[in-house]
């Protein structure tokens, strides 16, 4: 018999209570893994998309939530003349419900712009010109919408033929419906409006020069923001909101878990007052009793964390495959997030055990023995 046997024995003596406590804490941890994993996956997807398109700087009005507010397309021409800009292209991107899919990314891209260039045509053809009312689908978008070349897709009130299927080389690109900017403006009633200007800088432009470029853009477009593409995810308000929501929801779930563990530990300490008296009477130090209670609650936390990560991964996989998310967010099964979650769970366990442990160490042996 070791000290660990003693710790384990007190958790196994009431299996139902221990089990319910584990369920409580693991739901909290599962929430962390699922929500934060989704948020991280979304961020990663956006970063990959910008990379796949080959964008260095993104100009938009970032105050509009996930999809920025529209602004006048004349900005693009002004931006294109700035030093070190080699190419600029206008985009109008919206998230809309399309037919059976609850949410879809629809990207109206300036005809001939570099945003079209990196995608590879798999089937059919590209639109013939800027005015052709037709769409091409990313591979995942085609799968989610169950469309092939020759079908039509209804966007807002327009029925548009699918003329091609493309590989966009990033999950978010593949989950997108592409069409010419002109058509997009017409279909969504945003004539002359765009919400992104993507910019490519001269190759080998230094970070400082890029930052100077961003400041220059801000000078001519004060209400908007120009961001280096690698920083879009970190600074966008929309992502901050998503991150805050996912962590705060997780935090609530964790607090519920803490209360569960604390309640369980308090109950075990109360009902074992007599036994703690025995341990004190046979010469156990208060330190050892504190350690025993803390180890019990830490073990509860660890087990809850392991179960919770398992549930969370299951949740991520399920959510990732669900129609509303598929092709739009690739859940981030990040080992770092799992380790953080397990660590959180153990810390939660220890914190929940502090008060019960302190209580148990305050007992007078003779009084505890009488209870």
């Amino acid at each position, binding site marked *: 018999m070791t000290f660990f046997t003693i710790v384990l024995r007190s958790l196994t003596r009431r299996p139902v209570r221990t089990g319910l406590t584990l369920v409580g804490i693991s739901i909290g941890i599962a929430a962390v893994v699922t929500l934060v994993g989704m948020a991280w996956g979304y961020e990663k997807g956006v970063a990959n998309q910008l990379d796949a398109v080959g964008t260095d700087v993104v100009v938009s009005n970032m105050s509009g939530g996930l999809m920025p507010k529209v602004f006048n397309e004349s900005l693009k021409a002004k931006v294109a003349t700035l030093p070190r800009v080699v190419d600029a292209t206008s985009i109008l991107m919206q998230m809309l419900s399309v037919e059976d899919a609850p949410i879809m990314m629809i990207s109206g891209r300036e005809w001939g712009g570099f945003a079209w260039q990196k995608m590879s045509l798999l089937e059919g053809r590209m639109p013939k010109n800027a005015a052709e009312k037709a769409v091409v689908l990313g591979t995942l978008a085609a799968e989610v919408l169950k469309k092939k070349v020759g079908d039509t897709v209804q966007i807002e009130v327009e029925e548009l033929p699918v003329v091609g299927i493309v590989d966009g080389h990033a999950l978010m690109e593949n989950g997108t419906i592409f069409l010419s900017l002109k058509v997009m403006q017409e279909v969504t009633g945003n004539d002359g409006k765009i919400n992104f200007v993507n910019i490519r800088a001269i190759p080998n432009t230094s970070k400082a020069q890029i930052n100077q470029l961003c400041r220059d853009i801000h000078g001519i477009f004060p209400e908007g923001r120009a961001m280096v593409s690698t920083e879009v995810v970190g600074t966008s308000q929309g992502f901050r909101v998503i991150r805050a929501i996912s962590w705060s929801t997780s935090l609530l779930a964790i607090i519920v878990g803490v209360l569960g563990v604390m309640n369980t530990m308090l109950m075990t300490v109360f009902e074992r007052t007599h036994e703690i008296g025995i341990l*004190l*009477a*046979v*010469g156990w*130090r208060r330190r050892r009793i504190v350690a025993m209670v803390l180890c019990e609650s830490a073990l509860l936390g660890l087990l809850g964390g392991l179960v919770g990560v398992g549930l969370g991964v299951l949740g991520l996989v399920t959510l990732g495959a669900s129609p509303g998310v598929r092709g739009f967010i690739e859940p981030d099964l990040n080992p770092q997030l799992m380790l953080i979650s397990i660590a959180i769970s153990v810390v939660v366990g220890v914190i929940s055990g502090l008060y019960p442990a302190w209580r148990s160490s305050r007992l007078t042996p003779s009084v505890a*023995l009488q209870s």
Partner: protein
Amino acid sequence: MIYQAIGLQKQFDNGKVAALRGLDLEIRQGEFVAIVGQSGCGKSTLLQMLGALDKPSAGTLKYRGNSIPDLPDPAAYRAQQIGFVFQAFHLLPTFTVLENVQIPMFGGNLSRPQRKAGAAELLESVGLGHRFNHYPSELSGGERQRVAIARGLANKPGVVLADEPTGNLDSESALQIIDLLLDLHRKLGVTLVLVTHDLSIAARASRIIRMKDGRVISDQATPTN
């Protein structure tokens, strides 16, 4: 002198109840002392003070010349110097007999096999070699008290404090337990302080201390022992 009490007092409920009212007592090394008296006379309270399970309200109480309430490490005192045997056995219900006896050994430097072997030896010596893997609830009262005695001896203490060790036992088991305690007292030379209200048991001690209202009213050697 192993224990010395001078003017020892203990009050409960903020002084409303006085369990010990200026008790004087001396116990020598290797003695078998029986403390008798009616319930409420303070004999169990005295035993708790001797075992550092509680602190006196006033007076002096010394173990080998050191003040017990001021011991720097009362846990070590309880673990190393004292073996307790209680009326209600006070065994841990979720641990086997063999595990219960090992519980006091955790403070020491013993390895796991040493703890196990030590506990097994002690259980053999109290006649429970066949009960290692039973739980306390599976044992008779007399057997449980034997486990408690083995546990009390786990760290080879110099003193065994027994609080009504036969109080929950039938007369036959009670006799066996007293024989066992006497046997250990003789073989190991432990100082045995036994609280009881059974005069026939007290008669087997070398000295009988009578208590009433928190004081010693008589203290006599028993001629036959």
